[in-house]
C-alpha cells in the first residue's frame, strides 16, 4: 500500500522526495489547516480577493467547458443531424429533427464496425508485445543482471534520444524485407505490433519499478529453490500490477492514437484501424454519416477516460516524458 506507483521521470527525480514528504507535514499542520496555495487565509478573508477569485474560477470553468467539452458536444449533435442542417445552421440545435440513422449507417454500411474491430486488434497486439518485451527485459536487466546488462540498457536508453522520424524509412524497409522470415509483413498486423515493442520508455519504467522491489524477497525465493521463470511469474509480476497498469494505459492510448505508421504499413481498408480509415472516408461519404463515424471513434477513448479518470490524470504527468 505504501508502495504506490513509484515512477519518476528522470527530470523530475529530484521532486519525488519532496512530494513524499508532504504527507506527514500536512498532518502536522492539523486537520483544519487545509493544503494552502498561493492565496493565503488572510488574503482569503478580504472580500475583494474572495470575489475576484470566485469570478476567475467561474470564468475558467465556463472557458474549460466551452473549449474542452464544446467541440465534443457539437460532434455528438452533428452525428445525429441531417447534413443540410449541419451545413446551413451548424450552431443551431436540431432545426429539422434528429436523424439517428446516421450512426447505424456509419456502423454497418460504411463498415466502421470493421475499422473499430481492427483498432481493438491493433491496440491489443501492441499492448501484448510491449508488455512482454518490457517485463521480460526489465526482469533480466533489473533482477537477473547479466554482465552485458549495462551495455544493453545503455543501448535502450540511447534510442530515447533518436527522434521517431529517423526510423521511418528504414523501419518501413524492414517491414518490407524482415530478416529471417523472408516474406513481407506489409498489410499484416505484425507490422504495427512488433515495432511498438521497441519502446525504451516502457523498459525504463518497468526496470526502475523492479529496481525498487525488495531484493530480500528474490533471495528468499531463490533459497526456496525458485528458478528464474518461477521468480518472474510468481514473485515479480504479481508485485508489479501498478506499473503494468501504467504501461498498459500508455500502450493502448498510443495504439489508438497512432496514424502515420499504421497508414504506411496497413494499406488495405479491410485491416485499417479507425485513425487510418477516417481521413480516406472524408471525400467518399456524406457529411452527416462521416461525422457519425467520427463520433463513434471518439466514444471508446472518452469512455475509458471517464471510467479511469484518476488513473489517467495521475499518470499524465509522466506523459510529458514520452512526448519527446
Amino acid at each position, binding site marked *: 500500500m505504501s508502495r504506490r506507483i513509484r515512477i519518476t521521470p528522470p527530470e523530475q527525480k529530484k521532486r519525488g522526495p519532496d512530494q513524499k514528504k508532504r504527507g506527514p507535514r500536512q498532518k502536522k499542520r492539523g486537520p483544519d489547516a487545509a493544503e494552502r496555495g498561493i492565496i493565503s487565509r488572510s488574503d482569503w478573508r478580504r472580500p475583494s480577493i474572495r470575489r475576484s477569485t470566485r469570478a476567475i474560477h467561474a470564468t475558467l470553468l465556463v472557458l474549460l467547458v466551452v473549449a474542452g467539452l464544446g*467541440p465534443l458536444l457539437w460532434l455528438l449533435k452533428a452525428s445525429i443531424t441531417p447534413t443540410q442542417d449541419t451545413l446551413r445552421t451548424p450552431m443551431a440545435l436540431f432545426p429539422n429533427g434528429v436523424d439517428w440513422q446516421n450512426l447505424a449507417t456509419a456502423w454497418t454500411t460504411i463498415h466502421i464496425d470493421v475499422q473499430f474491430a481492427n483498432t481493438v486488434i491493433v491496440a491489443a497486439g501492441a499492448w501484448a508485445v510491449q508488455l512482454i518485451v518490457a517485463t521480460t527485459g526489465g526482469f533480466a536487466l533489473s533482477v*537477473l*543482471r547479466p554482465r552485458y546488462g549495462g551495455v544493453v540498457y545503455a543501448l535502450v536508453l540511447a534510442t530515447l534520444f533518436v527522434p521517431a*522520424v529517423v526510423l*521511418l524509412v528504414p523501419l518501413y524497409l524492414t517491414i*518490407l524485407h524482415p530478416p529471417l522470415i523472408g516474406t513481407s509483413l506489409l498489410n499484416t498486423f505484425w507490422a504495427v505490433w512488433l515495432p511498438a515493442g521497441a519502446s525504451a520508455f516502457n523498459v525504463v519504467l518497468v526496470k526502475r519499478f523492479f529496481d525498487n522491489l525488495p531484493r530480500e524477497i528474490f533471495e528468499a525465493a531463490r533459497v526456496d529453490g525458485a528458478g528464474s521463470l518461477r521468480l518472474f511469474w510468481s514473485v515479480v509480476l504479481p508485485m508489479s500490477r501498478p506499473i503494468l497498469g501504467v504501461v498498459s494505459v500508455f500502450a493502448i492510448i498510443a495504439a489508438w492514437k497512432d496514424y502515420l505508421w499504421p497508414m504506411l504499413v496497413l494499406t488495405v481498408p479491410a485491416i485499417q484501424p479507425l485513425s487510418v480509415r477516417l481521413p480516406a472516408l472524408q471525400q467518399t461519404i456524406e457529411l452527416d454519416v462521416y461525422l457519425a463515424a467520427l463520433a463513434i471513434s471518439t466514444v471508446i477513448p472518452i469512455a475509458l477516460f471517464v471510467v479511469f479518470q484518476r488513473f489517467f490524470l495521475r499518470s*499524465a504527468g509522466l506523459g510529458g516524458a514520452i512526448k519527446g
Partner: protein
Amino acid sequence: MSTLQRSAASGIQTRRSPASWVRRGGLSTLLFMLPLLVIFGVFSWKPIVEAVVMSLQTTNLVTPATFVGLENYIKVFSDPQLGQAVANTLYFAVLALIFGYPVPLVVAVLMSEVKRMRGLYSALAYLPVVVPPVVAVLLWKVFYNADATGPFNTVLSWVGIAPQPWLQSAATAMPSLVLEATWAGAGGTIIIYLAALTSVNPDLYDAAEIDGANIWKKVRHVTLPQLRSVLLVTFILQIIGTAQVFLEPFLFTNGGPANSTSTVLLLIYRYAFQNSLGGNYGAATALSVLLAVFLAAFSLVYFRLTRSWSTE
C-alpha cells in the same frame, strides 16, 4: 551486494565453460533478454544504423544500393522546397510557443487555487487530449469550413466578425493549424504543471507573506521560479515535438495552400512515399538524419545554457 551478483562474481574462474554458464542461469537470463534484444535489434537499433547508412546511398529496392557519399545531403540542401519547409516549421514552432506555451501555465496556476471540484476542472482540461488526434484534426477541419455558414464563422458572425478563410488562405492556414494543435495538446501540459504546482513547498508562500508579498508577487517570485525546472523541460519537449509536426499539415492542408504549411516532416514523407519516380529513400533519410542532428545539437546547447543560467 545481492547473492545473485555474488554468485556471478564467484563464477569468474569457471566462466569460460559453456556448461557452467548454463548451470549458473546464463542461458535462462539470455532467454529472458531475448524478446528485448530481438525487438530492439530489428525494429530500433538496426533501423537507426541503417538510416545513417542509407543517407549515404541511393536505394530503389530493385538494384543493389550504391554509396554516393554526401550526394543525398547536397540534393536535400539544393531542393528549393527545403527553405520553405524549414521556414514553415519554424513558423509553426514560434506560433505554438506564443499560443501554446503560456496558456497551459496560466490555466494551471489559476486551477491550482481551485479548492472545490478540482477534478472536474482537470477532467475538462484533459478531455481534448483523449480525443484521437486524427478525429480532432478531422473535426476541426469541419469547424474551419470557410463558408459564411461554417461553425467557426457562424460563431464569429455573432460578435460581428467577418467570415475568415481559415485553411483556404496561405496567411491564415498555419495559425489555424496551431490553434487546433494547441487545443489538442494543452491539457497534457496543464496536468504536468498542476502536478508540479502541488509540490511547491507551502512554507515558501508563508515566508513570502512575512516579507509582505501580495498575490501577484507570490506568483512572480515563488510559483514561477519553483516551476522553472518543469518549464525548462516542457519548453524543449515542445520544440522537439513541433519540429516533427506531421499530422496537422498532412491532414488539414497537405502542405497547401501554396506550400504555406509544408513542414520538414511532410517533405521527408514526400521524398520517401509520395514520389512519382519511386521512393527517394536516400534523400528522405538524409533529411531525417539532419533533423535529428539539429534537434540533438539544439537540446545540448539548450541544456548547457539553461544549466549555467539556473545555478547562478
